[in-house]
Every structure is written in C-alpha cells, then in structure tokens.
C-alpha cells in the first residue's frame, strides 16, 4: 500500500491556479524528491497532503485512507522556515509537540531524552530555544519531526543552515529512517542532495507535474549520448566523437550517434591512452531542472 496517494488534485486561489491536476504516489521505504521552481506549487501540494488546506477537487489518501485526525499523528513535518517557542526549553518544546501527535507525555519525555543524547544535544535540553545556535535549533526540529515515529516525513529544505558535519549526520538519520520503511518527502532546491538521496522525484512547474518517476530512469532519459573520460596521454581526433568538452579533471566526449561508447574505448586503448575513468555521462539533475523549467508547458 502506498503511503500517500494523490489523485488529480486541483487548488486555485483568487489570483492563480497553484496546483493543476496533480497525481502521484509515495511509497514506503523511499525518499521522494519534490522539486520545482519558486512558486511552482510545491508548498501548496505539501499543505494539501497534510490537510492544512483542502484541494478544490481531487483526493489525497494517507495509507490508503482519506485524511482523518489520526492521519496527522502518522506525519512528521519540518517546514522550511524553522522556529519553535523561543522562551520554551528545548525538552519542553519537544515533549509538547510530541503530545500533540498523540504521544503519552512520559513516553515522549523518555524518548526525547534518548534522541537528545543520540544527537549530542542532551546538555542543551534545558536551555531555552533562543539560547541555541541555528544548527542546534534545527537538530531539535529534527527530533520534533521524528519523535512520534511517523510513517511519513515531509522535510522542506532540511539541511539549510547546517554545517557539513550536521548535514551528514542528518542525511544518515533520514537514510536510516528510509531503511526502516518510512516514506520521506524531501523538498529542496539543492539538486545535489536530491541526486544523492532520492529514489524517485516529482518536479512541479506552474502547478503541473513535468517530471515524475525513478531518478535514474529520468537521468537516463535526458542523457546526452556522451561519455566521461579521465585519462593520461594525448587524445587527438577520435573517430565517432563530435566534440570534446573539457571538465575539471576529465574530458566529456560527445558521440555522433552512430558510434558506441565501447568503440570509442577500444580506439583509445589501441592508441595507448591510459584510461583512468570511462563512464556513460549522466546529466546532473541541476541541468535537467533548468532545461525542463525553462520549457513552455501546455
């Protein structure tokens, strides 16, 4: 059973149609990337998944059922602009929000202390939120989002403002949750993070789905018919290669469409070129994003 099923949802506001006939599903045990240009409708879609706003038409189901009060307890949400009660102690903020999700207070307190210890935040448990640094506040927010063991996590730019160490540990946290069978929606503009973490993606532009599916499959679809070559020696003119484009420490060879990558490799080896790396070039998601977002859509 899919964790989330979105079926032909539409949402219009007075001045525009924010979401226009969107359908997709999110499966258990996957990280689902939700990407798109600013104003595309991502946040509106997220709010409809969480029943904060209702679609004008269409349906959203959580774990196969229409949204109900108990559905909210199965969702953890981390908004992009983060903040908790400034004058509340960290532990109190975590426990309060956990109880809103239906957790027993004593259980929530115990689990909060465990998670604070795991993240190295236990010494800060009794500090007020406005006494914590931005990174520490975000770790607290991570705990708030996950403490009630939700089936679905919706994370909007979860790594912004985190240093590399905390970013890496947060990524590992999410990957562990994914491996436990949770569904994670990752909404971000950082395409490198999407490439690194997401299994499937949905790209929304002007309220419509413009890319949807397995990330590898999408990248293959947008392949340039080129290969990445790291080498030593002289290349010269290579038959079947239209263009040689130098990268930082590699050369990208654009094939003419009639020559296979294997033929190019054989040519290089016959010439005595030392090949350190040879792979089919997959376009970065950033490039795909720019290309798709820049196209006119019907």
């Amino acid at each position: 059973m899919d964790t989330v099923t979105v079926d032909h949802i539409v949402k219009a506001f007075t001045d525009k149609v924010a979401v226009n006939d969107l359908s997709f599903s999110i499966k258990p045990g996957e990280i689902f990337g939700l990407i798109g240009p600013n104003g595309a409708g991502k946040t509106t879609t997220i709010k409809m998944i969480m029943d904060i706003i209702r679609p004008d038409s269409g349906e959203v189901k959580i774990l196969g059922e229409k949204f109900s009060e108990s559905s909210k307890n199965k969702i953890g949400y981390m908004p992009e602009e983060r903040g908790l009660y400034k004058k509340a102690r960290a532990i109190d903020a975590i426990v309060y929000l956990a109880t809103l999700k239906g957790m027993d207070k004593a259980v929530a307190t115990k689990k909060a202390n465990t998670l604070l210890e795991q993240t190295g935040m236990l010494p800060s448990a009794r500090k007020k939120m406005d006494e914590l640094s931005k990174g520490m506040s975000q770790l607290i927010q991570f705990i708030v989002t996950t403490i009630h063991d939700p089936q679905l996590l919706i994370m909007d730019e979860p790594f912004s403002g985190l240093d590399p160490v905390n970013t890496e540990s947060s990524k590992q946290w999410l990957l562990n949750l994914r491996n436990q069978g949770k569904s994670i929606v990752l909404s971000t503009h950082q395409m490198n993070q999407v490439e690194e973490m997401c299994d499937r993606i949905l790209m929304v532009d002007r309220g419509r789905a413009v890319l949807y599916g397995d990330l590898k499959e999408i990248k293959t679809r947008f392949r340039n018919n080129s290969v990445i070559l790291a080498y030593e020696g002289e290349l010269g003119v290579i038959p079947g290669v239209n263009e040689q484009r130098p990268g930082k420490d590699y050369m990208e060879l654009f094939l003419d469409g009639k020559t296979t990558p294997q033929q190019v490799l054989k040519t290089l080896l016959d010439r005595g070129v030392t090949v350190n790396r040879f792979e089919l070039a997959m376009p970065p998601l950033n490039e795909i994003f720019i290309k798709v977002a820049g196209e006119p859509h019907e």
Partner: protein
Amino acid sequence: MITRTGFIIVTLIVPVLSILGIVIYQIVSGAVTPEVKITDVGYVDTIGGFNRYTQQGNVNLISYATVEEANKALASQAVKEYVVITPEYLATGIINLYTLEKQLEPPAETTSALKKFLSSNILAGKIPDTQITLVNSPLGVITTRLTTSGEVAEEQGGYGNLLIPSIFSVLLVLSITFSSSYLLAGLGDEKENRLIEVLLSSVSPRQLIIGKVLGMGAAGLIQIVIWVVSAPLILKMASVSIGGFLSTLEITPVFLLLFVVYFVLGYLVFAIIFVAIGAVTTSAREGQQFAPIFTLAAVCPLWFSGAIIMFPNNPAFVVMTLFPLTAPVTLMMRLGATEVPAWQIIVSVIVLAASVLGGLFLTAKIVRTFLLMYGKRPSLGQIIRSLKAG
C-alpha cells in the same frame, strides 16, 4: 501563560496590594497621631451680639474691633482670613470674607465653621443650647431599603454597593487587556516563525482556536477564582481594621454569580476576537496595534461611569448592557447603582453566549483562510468575502 511572570503579578497584585494597604493603614494609624491643625479666622462684628461659640471644630474665631485691625492681623498672618458681619448679612444671608490667598471658593471647613458660629449666635438665648447644637449638627439619615412586600431587602444599596462592582469592572478590563496581549503575542510568534505550520500538521484549525480560547478562558478563571475567594476575606479584614464605610460593603452571592458568568463570557468573546486578529495580521506587533480597537469597547463603559451611576436605566446604557463587547463592564456598574431588570440580564447573557458561539464559527473560517498567509495582511473586503464564502 499561567507561569508567566506578568500573569502571576496581575493575578496576585490585587489581593496582595489590598492586604498591604490594610497592614500599612494599621501601622500608620497606630504609630502616628495625626496632627490637629487649628485655623484662626478673624471677624469684625459691626452689629453686635456675635461673641459666643467662637470655637467651631478646628476653626478658632477671633474678634477684631475694626476692619483696620483685622487687615493688620491678616497681613501679619495672625489670621488666615476674616469676615465682616454687617446688617446686610441679617437681611440677605450674604457675608464678605477677606483673604490673602487665591481661592476658587472659600474653604469648606471655614464656611462650615462660620455658618455654625453665626447661626449659634443668632439663636443664642432664644432656644436652649442643646437645640442650637442639634440645629448645627449634620443630619444623620439611616436608609433602609424595603421590598415591595414591606420586608427589609437583602441588598441595601449605598455607595458601598458601587465600589465593589466598579472594582470588579476594572479587574475585568485589566484581565482582558493583559490576556489579549499574551494571546496575540503567542499567535503572532507562532505565525512569524512558521511554528503555526507545525501546529496545523498536528491539530485542525478548529482545535487550535478552541484550544487557545479555552486556554485563555481557563487562565482568566484562575484569576477570578483567586480574586473572588480573596475578596470576602480581605473585605472582612478591612472592615475590622479600618471599619467605617468599609464595614458597609457587601458581596452578595447573586453578584458573585453574575460576575463569574460575565467574566467568563466576556473573556471568551474577546479571546475569540483576538484569535481572529492574530490570524489576519502578519506579526505580533501588528496584532497589538489592532487589539485596542476592541479593548476600547470593554473600557468605554468606565468612561461613562459617572453617567451610568446617575442614570443607570438610561436607554443608552441598556443598549450597552445588551451589546456583547460592552455588556460585561456596563452591567457590573449598573448593578451597583440600580436593580437591573432580570430580562435585561437574561437577554444580555444569551447575546453574549451566542456571540461566543458565532464568533468561534466565523473565526474558524478566518483562521482556515488567512492563518498561513504570510507577509500580507488581507483587506477588510477579503475577510468579509471569505466569511460569505462556503
């Protein structure tokens, strides 16, 4: 909210200050004997016969043979002022007073002493001294309020009857003002730092509103419980220690019941209004700017307190008793000045209760539409359209 310093201070300050006042009074009245100041007032008797009863309370009347002598005494400040008794006084009752001070009107103590001096001397020898004393003494009137069946009424009225409702009115306004600022600040902060999105991912907008309104109502209840429980005790302490006027004060069970009912309903009405303000404004600060528009409605009966006391059954004040925003304070003040008809109280309570329910419904619509609108405050037209929409 109830653990906030400001809330605790406002809640406890009333009983604490009252007890402090009683204790200070006891200390001061025991330690200090008030100094009795004798005022010397001169007089020139051109008629003759005004030579007795020259000691009137704290005023000592000193006779001078001529106006010149009296002027010298005034200039040397041997006397504070002097009067000249002429035949014109016996004909018209008008007497001239001469003073170095700039006065709006003659001091009440001097005027009272002069009247007693003059009337005592006029009556001297014509009626017994005891009757002269009776004529000059203030009229002692004891009022007993009866019911229509001729029995002594439970509530006797008097100035004491005004004081308690007036105090309670002020307390109600104080509570509403302080609590509204907490509620707006909290909602504004939640909106500003997007915490509201986290909350709405856990509870529905209706649950959010009801939680905030009831939470504020519960905080208000705690305040009035403390005040209501402490008021009779403090009153008893005050009447024993200070006595006098304070011993005539009474808080009847009916008044207490009405106070609790109006306090709770008034609190809830304003709480709902402030939740709506918090939903449409972009920040706590902006919300605070709009709040006074509504708290003024709670406060304005206090501006008309004098008129309410004098004309408690004026149609304007009856309307204010029925209008939900002004009802709590207006009714409290009218209860002190008159017997408010039962139908007005019943209609007022019904209107208030309906306002609470209707307000909840409308606020839920506003919250659902505008709570997540950031950076831009909706216009009044947009708000009205959203209320009309399904």
